[in-house]
Protein backbone atom coordinates (compact mmCIF):
# COMPACT_ATOMS: atom_id res chain seq x y z
CA UNK A 1 0.00 0.00 0.00
CA UNK A 2 1.41 3.32 -0.97
CA UNK A 3 0.49 6.79 -2.10
CA UNK A 4 2.04 8.54 -5.07
CA UNK A 5 2.21 12.32 -4.80
CA UNK A 6 2.81 14.61 -7.76
CA UNK A 7 2.91 18.38 -7.42
CA UNK A 8 2.58 20.63 -10.46
CA UNK A 9 2.20 24.35 -11.04
CA UNK A 10 -1.06 25.49 -12.56
CA UNK A 11 -2.44 28.83 -13.68
CA UNK A 12 -1.66 31.91 -11.65
CA UNK A 13 0.00 31.05 -8.40
CA UNK A 14 -2.03 27.92 -7.84
CA UNK A 15 -0.73 24.38 -7.57
CA UNK A 16 -2.24 20.96 -8.16
CA UNK A 17 -1.39 18.01 -5.93
CA UNK A 18 -2.18 14.71 -7.67
CA UNK A 19 -2.64 11.79 -5.31
CA UNK A 20 -2.72 8.17 -6.45
CA UNK A 21 -3.27 5.27 -4.07
CA UNK A 22 -4.52 4.89 -0.51
CA UNK A 23 -4.31 7.54 2.22
CA UNK A 24 -4.21 6.08 5.71
CA UNK A 25 -2.30 6.39 8.97
CA UNK A 26 0.82 5.02 7.26
CA UNK A 27 0.79 7.02 4.03
CA UNK A 28 -0.77 10.32 5.15
CA UNK A 29 2.54 11.84 6.42
CA UNK A 30 3.77 11.83 2.81
CA UNK A 31 0.71 13.82 1.73
CA UNK A 32 1.07 16.14 4.70
CA UNK A 33 4.70 16.86 3.78
CA UNK A 34 3.83 17.65 0.14
CA UNK A 35 1.04 20.07 1.11
CA UNK A 36 3.15 21.55 3.90
CA UNK A 37 6.07 22.21 1.53
CA UNK A 38 3.82 24.14 -0.85
CA UNK A 39 2.41 26.26 1.96
CA UNK A 40 5.87 26.87 3.42
CA UNK A 41 6.89 28.24 0.00
CA UNK A 42 3.98 30.68 0.04
CA UNK A 43 1.51 28.86 -2.24
CA UNK A 44 -1.93 29.21 -0.70
CA UNK A 45 -4.30 28.24 -3.52
CA UNK A 46 -4.30 24.51 -4.00
CA UNK A 47 -6.28 21.89 -5.87
CA UNK A 48 -5.88 18.41 -4.46
CA UNK A 49 -6.84 15.83 -7.02
CA UNK A 50 -8.27 12.69 -5.39
CA UNK A 51 -9.52 11.09 -8.63
CA UNK A 52 -7.02 8.24 -8.31
CA UNK A 53 -7.37 7.80 -4.57
CA UNK A 54 -9.03 4.49 -3.79
CA UNK A 55 -9.26 4.88 -0.03
CA UNK A 56 -9.01 7.60 2.61
CA UNK A 57 -9.37 7.39 6.38
CA UNK A 58 -9.64 9.97 9.16
CA UNK A 59 -5.90 10.61 9.22
CA UNK A 60 -6.07 11.51 5.52
CA UNK A 61 -9.04 13.77 6.18
CA UNK A 62 -7.06 15.35 9.01
CA UNK A 63 -4.20 16.17 6.64
CA UNK A 64 -6.60 17.87 4.22
CA UNK A 65 -8.25 19.83 7.05
CA UNK A 66 -4.85 20.86 8.39
CA UNK A 67 -3.83 22.13 4.95
CA UNK A 68 -7.06 24.05 4.55
CA UNK A 69 -6.64 25.71 7.93
CA UNK A 70 -3.13 26.85 7.08
CA UNK A 71 -3.95 28.31 3.65
CA UNK A 72 -7.03 30.08 5.02
CA UNK A 73 -4.79 31.96 7.43
CA UNK A 74 -3.22 33.50 4.32
CA UNK A 75 -6.45 34.11 2.43
CA UNK A 76 -6.07 30.99 0.28
CA UNK A 77 -8.15 27.90 -0.18
CA UNK A 78 -8.02 24.18 -0.97
CA UNK A 79 -10.40 22.69 -3.52
CA UNK A 80 -10.74 18.97 -4.03
CA UNK A 81 -11.39 16.89 -7.13
CA UNK A 82 -13.24 13.73 -6.17
CA UNK A 83 -15.33 11.30 -8.20
CA UNK A 84 -15.11 8.11 -6.11
CA UNK A 85 -18.60 7.56 -4.57
CA UNK A 86 -17.23 5.90 -1.43
CA UNK A 87 -14.87 8.78 -0.74
CA UNK A 88 -17.59 11.32 -1.49
CA UNK A 89 -19.73 9.49 1.05
CA UNK A 90 -17.01 9.91 3.71
CA UNK A 91 -16.87 13.67 3.04
CA UNK A 92 -20.64 13.77 3.23
CA UNK A 93 -21.15 11.93 6.52
CA UNK A 94 -18.35 13.82 8.25
CA UNK A 95 -19.79 17.15 7.14
CA UNK A 96 -16.62 18.06 5.25
CA UNK A 97 -18.67 18.84 2.13
CA UNK A 98 -19.54 22.09 3.90
CA UNK A 99 -15.91 23.01 4.43
CA UNK A 100 -14.21 21.98 1.20
CA UNK A 101 -15.11 22.86 -2.34
CA UNK A 102 -15.48 19.42 -3.94
CA UNK A 103 -15.59 19.17 -7.74
CA UNK A 104 -15.96 16.45 -10.34
CA UNK A 105 -13.07 17.63 -12.49
CA UNK A 106 -9.91 19.66 -12.24
CA UNK A 107 -11.08 22.49 -14.50
CA UNK A 108 -14.04 23.21 -12.26
CA UNK A 109 -11.85 23.05 -9.14
CA UNK A 110 -9.32 25.45 -10.70
CA UNK A 111 -11.99 27.93 -11.83
CA UNK A 112 -13.45 27.95 -8.33
CA UNK A 113 -10.10 29.02 -6.88
CA UNK A 114 -10.23 32.33 -8.66
Amino acid sequence: MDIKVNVREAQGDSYVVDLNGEIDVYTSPKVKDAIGDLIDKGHYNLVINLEKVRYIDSTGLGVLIGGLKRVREHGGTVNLVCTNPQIKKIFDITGLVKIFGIYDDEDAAMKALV
Partner: protein
Amino acid sequence: MNQPVARPKSMGVVELRIPSKAEWVAVARLAVAAVANRLNFSIEDIEDVKLAVAEACTNCIQHAHGSDQIEITCETEPEMLTVRVRDYGHGTRPEAISSRRIDEPRVGGLGVFLIRSLMDSVDYDVHPDRGTNLVMTKNVTS
Protein backbone atom coordinates in the same frame (compact mmCIF):
# COMPACT_ATOMS: atom_id res chain seq x y z
CA MET B 1 -44.42 -20.74 27.39
CA ASN B 2 -42.17 -18.66 25.22
CA GLN B 3 -39.85 -20.53 22.96
CA PRO B 4 -36.22 -19.44 23.16
CA VAL B 5 -35.18 -17.40 20.17
CA ALA B 6 -32.71 -19.38 18.12
CA ARG B 7 -29.55 -17.44 17.40
CA PRO B 8 -28.17 -17.99 13.90
CA LYS B 9 -25.27 -20.38 13.80
CA SER B 10 -21.81 -18.94 13.58
CA MET B 11 -20.24 -19.59 10.20
CA GLY B 12 -16.82 -19.35 11.72
CA VAL B 13 -14.38 -17.15 13.54
CA VAL B 14 -11.31 -15.52 11.99
CA GLU B 15 -8.63 -14.15 14.27
CA LEU B 16 -5.79 -11.86 13.33
CA ARG B 17 -3.08 -10.24 15.39
CA ILE B 18 -1.03 -7.37 13.98
CA PRO B 19 1.83 -5.31 15.37
CA SER B 20 0.55 -1.99 16.73
CA LYS B 21 2.23 -0.04 13.94
CA ALA B 22 0.84 2.12 11.15
CA GLU B 23 2.23 -0.03 8.33
CA TRP B 24 0.12 -3.03 9.44
CA VAL B 25 -3.28 -1.34 9.44
CA ALA B 26 -3.72 -2.01 5.71
CA VAL B 27 -3.26 -5.73 6.38
CA ALA B 28 -6.02 -5.68 9.00
CA ARG B 29 -8.51 -3.80 6.86
CA LEU B 30 -7.89 -5.97 3.81
CA ALA B 31 -8.16 -9.19 5.83
CA VAL B 32 -11.48 -8.13 7.36
CA ALA B 33 -12.71 -7.03 3.93
CA ALA B 34 -11.92 -10.52 2.66
CA VAL B 35 -13.92 -12.00 5.54
CA ALA B 36 -16.85 -9.66 4.82
CA ASN B 37 -16.66 -10.72 1.20
CA ARG B 38 -17.50 -14.29 2.29
CA LEU B 39 -20.87 -12.99 3.49
CA ASN B 40 -23.41 -11.40 1.18
CA PHE B 41 -22.37 -7.81 1.84
CA SER B 42 -22.59 -5.25 -0.92
CA ILE B 43 -19.34 -3.68 -2.09
CA GLU B 44 -20.36 -0.45 -0.36
CA ASP B 45 -20.92 -2.25 2.94
CA ILE B 46 -17.57 -4.01 2.64
CA GLU B 47 -15.93 -0.60 2.19
CA ASP B 48 -17.73 0.61 5.33
CA VAL B 49 -16.42 -2.35 7.36
CA LYS B 50 -12.93 -1.86 5.96
CA LEU B 51 -12.82 1.78 7.02
CA ALA B 52 -14.32 1.09 10.47
CA VAL B 53 -11.69 -1.59 11.18
CA ALA B 54 -8.89 0.71 10.02
CA GLU B 55 -10.16 3.53 12.23
CA ALA B 56 -10.34 1.19 15.22
CA CYS B 57 -6.76 -0.02 14.64
CA THR B 58 -5.55 3.55 14.13
CA ASN B 59 -7.09 4.53 17.47
CA CYS B 60 -5.24 1.66 19.16
CA ILE B 61 -1.95 2.82 17.64
CA GLN B 62 -2.45 6.48 18.46
CA HIS B 63 -3.97 6.25 21.94
CA ALA B 64 -2.92 2.98 23.59
CA HIS B 65 0.52 3.07 25.14
CA GLY B 66 2.43 -0.05 26.02
CA SER B 67 0.48 -2.35 23.73
CA ASP B 68 2.55 -3.79 20.91
CA GLN B 69 -0.21 -5.93 19.42
CA ILE B 70 -3.76 -5.43 18.21
CA GLU B 71 -6.13 -8.38 18.14
CA ILE B 72 -8.87 -8.44 15.53
CA THR B 73 -11.55 -11.11 15.75
CA CYS B 74 -14.27 -11.59 13.13
CA GLU B 75 -17.30 -13.71 13.93
CA THR B 76 -19.39 -14.51 10.91
CA GLU B 77 -23.07 -15.30 10.85
CA PRO B 78 -25.23 -15.60 7.74
CA GLU B 79 -26.68 -12.11 8.16
CA MET B 80 -24.15 -10.37 10.37
CA LEU B 81 -20.47 -9.73 10.89
CA THR B 82 -19.14 -8.96 14.35
CA VAL B 83 -15.64 -7.49 14.59
CA ARG B 84 -13.78 -7.11 17.87
CA VAL B 85 -10.68 -4.91 17.99
CA ARG B 86 -8.69 -5.23 21.19
CA ASP B 87 -5.54 -3.70 22.57
CA TYR B 88 -3.94 -4.12 25.99
CA GLY B 89 -2.42 -0.69 26.31
CA HIS B 90 -2.86 1.80 29.08
CA GLY B 91 -3.47 5.47 29.22
CA THR B 92 -6.36 5.58 26.79
CA ARG B 93 -8.72 8.30 27.98
CA PRO B 94 -12.46 7.98 27.29
CA GLU B 95 -12.34 11.34 25.48
CA ALA B 96 -9.89 9.79 23.04
CA ILE B 97 -12.78 7.75 21.68
CA SER B 98 -15.32 10.53 21.77
CA SER B 99 -17.29 11.04 18.60
CA ARG B 100 -17.68 14.27 16.73
CA ARG B 101 -18.80 15.60 13.38
CA ILE B 102 -17.05 18.44 11.66
CA ASP B 103 -18.51 21.80 12.53
CA GLU B 104 -15.35 23.78 11.95
CA PRO B 105 -12.03 22.75 10.44
CA ARG B 106 -10.18 20.85 13.17
CA VAL B 107 -7.60 18.11 12.81
CA GLY B 108 -8.32 14.80 14.51
CA GLY B 109 -11.23 13.14 16.29
CA LEU B 110 -13.13 11.89 13.27
CA GLY B 111 -12.27 8.21 13.57
CA VAL B 112 -14.84 7.24 16.19
CA PHE B 113 -17.50 9.30 14.46
CA LEU B 114 -16.84 7.35 11.27
CA ILE B 115 -16.98 4.00 13.08
CA ARG B 116 -20.32 4.88 14.65
CA SER B 117 -21.68 6.14 11.33
CA LEU B 118 -20.61 3.17 9.24
CA MET B 119 -21.43 0.25 11.54
CA ASP B 120 -24.84 -0.86 12.84
CA SER B 121 -23.77 -1.23 16.47
CA VAL B 122 -20.65 -0.13 18.31
CA ASP B 123 -19.70 -0.92 21.87
CA TYR B 124 -16.53 0.60 23.33
CA ASP B 125 -15.08 -0.62 26.61
CA VAL B 126 -12.22 1.67 27.56
CA HIS B 127 -10.19 0.92 30.66
CA PRO B 128 -7.14 3.01 31.56
CA ASP B 129 -5.19 -0.06 32.69
CA ARG B 130 -6.61 -2.96 30.71
CA GLY B 131 -6.80 -1.39 27.30
CA THR B 132 -9.66 -0.93 24.89
CA ASN B 133 -12.14 -3.47 23.63
CA LEU B 134 -14.29 -2.41 20.70
CA VAL B 135 -17.07 -4.64 19.44
CA MET B 136 -18.92 -3.57 16.31
CA THR B 137 -21.42 -5.26 14.05
CA LYS B 138 -22.63 -4.85 10.52
CA ASN B 139 -25.82 -6.46 9.27
CA VAL B 140 -26.14 -7.83 5.78
CA THR B 141 -28.84 -5.80 4.05
CA SER B 142 -30.69 -7.14 1.07
